[in-house]
């Protein structure tokens, strides 16, 4: 359980040697990933209980990503696609990507196939990527009161391009509430990274 502990503590230096050691001893990449996911789950709970804030959560997520980079070549791609394919991004002119990155890392840890388009993403880039990747879920974030309504433009862009059907839109970020999400035509709202994983998993059940 050392790997899990390092994820929780954010032991960016310790994680890689531990994984190497685990692999040498014959553990499978899937097994090690499962342990890291457990760690991230606990981090999510610590965040929910306000024992962890953004810096601590970021450090844990970065630690897990370091581990995941080592494991990725050893993991099967199909599994991730089965769980669901997701693109996420922050709307144009919103440069806040911390929450977004946390969501992406939490989703990746939960086994989703994830494409993080980053911050400041114009609607046309969301559309191009959707056409290319055919995602099950599109996650859009807006942190500022000044950019929240841009999310509506993204959803409308998908409608106009005929790309809205068969896809779920999840919105998040400080600018949102359940009501505002509903008003702009999103399928769901997730208030933080841990909730996002639950919401995405719930939506994927609806798909099946």
């Amino acid at each position, binding site marked *: 359980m050392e790997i899990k502990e390092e994820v929780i503590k*954010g032991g*960016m230096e310790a994680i890689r040697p531990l994984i190497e050691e685990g692999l040498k001893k014959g553990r499978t990449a899937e097994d090690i990933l499962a342990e890291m996911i457990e760690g991230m789950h606990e981090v999510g709970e610590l965040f929910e209980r*306000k024992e962890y*804030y*953004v*810096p*601590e959560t*970021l*450090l844990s997520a*970065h630690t897990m990503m370091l581990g995941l980079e080592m494991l990725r070549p050893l993991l099967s791609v199909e599994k991730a696609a089965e769980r669901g394919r997701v693109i996420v991004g922050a709307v*144009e*002119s*919103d*440069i*806040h*990507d*911390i929450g977004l*990155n946390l969501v992406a890392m939490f989703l990746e840890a939960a086994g989703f196939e994830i494409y993080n388009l980053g911050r*400041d993403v*114009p609607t046309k880039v969301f559309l191009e990527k959707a056409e290319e990747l055919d995602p099950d879920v599109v996650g859009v974030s807006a942190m*500022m*009161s*000044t*950019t*929240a*309504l841009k999310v509506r433009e993204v959803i409308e862009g998908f409608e106009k391009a005929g790309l809205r059907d068969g896809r779920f839109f999840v919105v998040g970020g*400080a600018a949102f*509430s359940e009501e*505002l999400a509903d*008003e702009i035509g999103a399928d769901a709202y997730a208030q933080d990274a841990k909730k996002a994983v639950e919401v995405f998993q719930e939506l994927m059940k609806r798909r099946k």
Partner: protein
Amino acid sequence: MNSYKRFQRAMEGDTPDRTPVAPMVNVPHASRVLGVKPWEYVTDNALYVKGQIAAQRKYGYDWIFNHQPIQGITAEERKAVRVEQDFVVLPTEMGSVLKIPLDGGPAVIDPALKDYSMLDDLEMPDMDRPGRMEPLEELLRQVGDEVYICSKVPAPFHYAAEWMRGLNQFLLDMLVNPQYVHRLLDFMADVAIEIGKKQIDVGTHGIMMEDPSAAAQVISPDHYREFAYPYERKVARALKAYGGDVIIHICGDTTPILPDLARTGAKCLSVDESVDLRKAKETVGDRVALFGNVPVETIYRGTEEEIKAGVRKCIDSAGGSGYILSSSCGLHRGTPFKNLHTLVDYAIKYKKE
């Protein structure tokens, strides 16, 4: 009693003739009032002044928030503004690069401090450069006798994060490189103090220090006390000693850190809607004035009655002495003019029971 006196008395903790009203009218809203693009508004001192005054005149609120953190722009900087396809790029004197969407507020896209070895090379911006104090001078000259002019200084924590490192990296730095973070914060506090002193010299009535990256949803109270508070305090104390009246705004539920904030030397604390104004008044109302907190979402999409109820709730909780009514944060882009009229008109009329 004019707006200036009304606001000023509330800052002192006294009871003015009515509740002063001071919504946080930001770049997207004020530029809409003027009917110009946000970037034109931000990069043209004369337009900026015109827009701020036009918005104050239109609604009749009691202050003008001179909200440019770096203050006025020089002729050279204006020439360096590059118009891209649908946004504008503006390099700043601190070394970071701003991007201003054609229809939104400015944001840093390229932070200045790539690594901490650059710390020793950081230079204090020139406070006397031409253009810097132009907007403040003009606002004071045109309406300074009647309206309370409050100028922004860059809060050390927020601007160390936004301008210098990027928030993501900065929050990680706090955990892995705290000694460098403290050095950077100390430098940023010096920058804020120099800007604030210059504003006081020119004659600003008040000083606003917004520290949203230190929001209660982002960092723990312990981290706030270690990384944000000491530098807010350094700035607020220095400016107080220099004769300035400081307001500090932090987003999120700041209830646990209100007693700390009240010790910074700030004269007034601005809180968002997660804070119960009545409780805040009980905890720190004897030491500082309070400022806030009609939810921006209500102002954006509430009915007339909901906006009025929001105003009543604030004034009933904190009205009387030492209170200024405001929005909980910067207004939503697209907030209808009519809604802000409702807020201001009603807040002017409403008397606490």
